[in-house]
């Protein structure tokens, strides 16, 4: 979605787990395109945060860090356990990808996770 200096992503999920996965998938769609092929690598991620917004930022920041260090785009996210402030997941990715928008960091800018009858939604602003 439109955001002047950076990039903003509006994320939806029918439940908390789906919301978290969709946020990750959306971030990588902004950052890259890739072929549909079996993942070539996987990592386990385990996080604990003070609130939902911080968990979301920590999750995406962790993926961003791994992306940069491993040169991998993560395309599959298996949630093993989740609560409003904790998350354990296995993430799988590919080394075969082409860059789109370079994301430098995940920000807290205007970040409010809304719970509605349809599920969860938020707008995430990335520094680019």
């Amino acid at each position, binding site marked *: *979605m*439109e*955001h*002047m*200096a*950076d*990039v903003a992503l509006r994320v939806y999920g029918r439940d908390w787990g789906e919301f978290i996965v969709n946020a990750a998938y959306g971030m990588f769609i902004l950052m890259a395109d890739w072929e549909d092929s079996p993942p070539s690598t996987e990592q386990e991620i385990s996080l604990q945060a*003070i609130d939902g*917004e*911080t968990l979301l*930022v*920590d999750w995406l*920041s962790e993926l961003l*860090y791994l992306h*940069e*260090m491993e040169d991998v785009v993560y395309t599959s996210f298996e949630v093993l356990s989740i609560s409003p402030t904790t998350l354990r997941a296995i993430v799988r990715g590919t080394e075969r990808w*082409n*860059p*789109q*928008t*370079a994301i*430098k*960091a*995940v*920000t*807290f*800018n*205007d*970040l409010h996770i809304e719970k509605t009858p349809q599920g969860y939604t938020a707008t995430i*602003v990335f*520094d*680019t």
Partner: protein
Amino acid sequence: MIEKKDIKRLDKYLYEIPTSHRDDMRVSARIYADEELLQATLSDRSLEQLVNTTTLPGVVKYTLAMPDIHQGYGFPIGGVAATKPPDGVISPGGIGYDINCGVRVLASNIEREELAPYVEDLLLTMYRLVPTGLGKGGIKISKGEFNKVLERGAAWAVGQGYGTRQDLERTEEQGCLAGADAARVSQRAKDRGHKQLGSLGSGNHFLEIDEIVEVFDQEVAEVFGLQQGCIAIQIHCGSRGLGHQVCSDYVKLLQKAVRKYGIQLPDRELVCAPFDSREGQDYFAAMAASANFAWTNRHVIAHWVRRAFEEVLTGKIRSWELTQVYDVAHNIGKVEQYTIDGKRHKLVIHRKGATRAFGPSSKELPKVYQGLGQPVLVPGSMGTTSYILVGTDEALDLTFGSSCHGAGRTMSRTKAKKTIWGEDLQRELKEQGIAVKAGSMAGLAEEAPAAYKDVERVVNVVAGAGIAHKVARLDPIGVIKG
């Protein structure tokens, strides 16, 4: 949203939002702009963000927006704020994720016509020697040595045979901000930086070959080494993943500090801590280390640019040299002294998308520039006009010695990619005589000149307000971006 009626005009290029606008404002907010630029700021949330900065504990005098202001997070981009210790805070949002994103300019005595046959070769050679994009940096060192980069900055690079002592003299803070502590930088940030030392990065970062097309102040231009019709080089980049990680780390850490010190904030990205607190000092030390990484980065890139010139031009062009004009930071926090109400105070100056612009009286400048003023480097967006200005003593009083940093965006990256094709843009720029080497066509489209404000308007405001004077104008003839 702020409306026109909320803004008072104080002068031709100066506007103010008074403290009566909102109950939580501690000081007023001032905006340097012309009518058209001011109107443009009303279309995003940049002025609301500026008003938010006036709520920071310990903020003094007023907070400022430069004419290239646009919406950021926490602070707007193009924002300046000063706070006074001990209550005065330091805020990572007031400095930005790309700590010490900045510009280095080298000038030469090579005339454009002499260089013309070799521009493509030079671009290809620079593209080969200077890592760009999301990849690794060009320098491999041990982790112990890397800590020295964080604490010694560009001086470390000179010790390793990159560049010269004169380059250091002509760098803000001589390429090393005092107070840096590698121990305050997380291992994760070091891992990212260690991998990327000596690289241009991507996004709005670029390496440019320019022609100095116009000189406004011959006397100052001569001392700066700027000759009309000759070539200059601009290097625009920052602290890469290290700075981004440091900012992320401390935005997270300071969420707790805000609660500990009972600080109320209108925006979570304004998280902060009293400068004199342990948290505030830790952030400053990590921020300074990140700034030193960025200066080292630009320093080694400049070294490779010189090597590219040697490779391509030796034996082809008569004797030439590439001399550093200056290197400025435009995302940084500094401790500087200012007079307020007749008293001298040590203040924490936040510049986010703003450049230091010290005047002739400043003893902080290299000896050769004392009595003249500091070069203020204002790159336009990739492929457009840039300016070199000189700082004034008036700026100390008007803007905490600060000026604009560039053009400021008018179009989001999303819209730019949807409406502009990178390949078309590359062809159009070539038709204008600008050769472009880019790693990603999508990335190129995001940086299209049409996505940015007119830098000339921005510079005219700054010059008209007496903050800095025009010295020279540069036009690109070759651009590399990641």
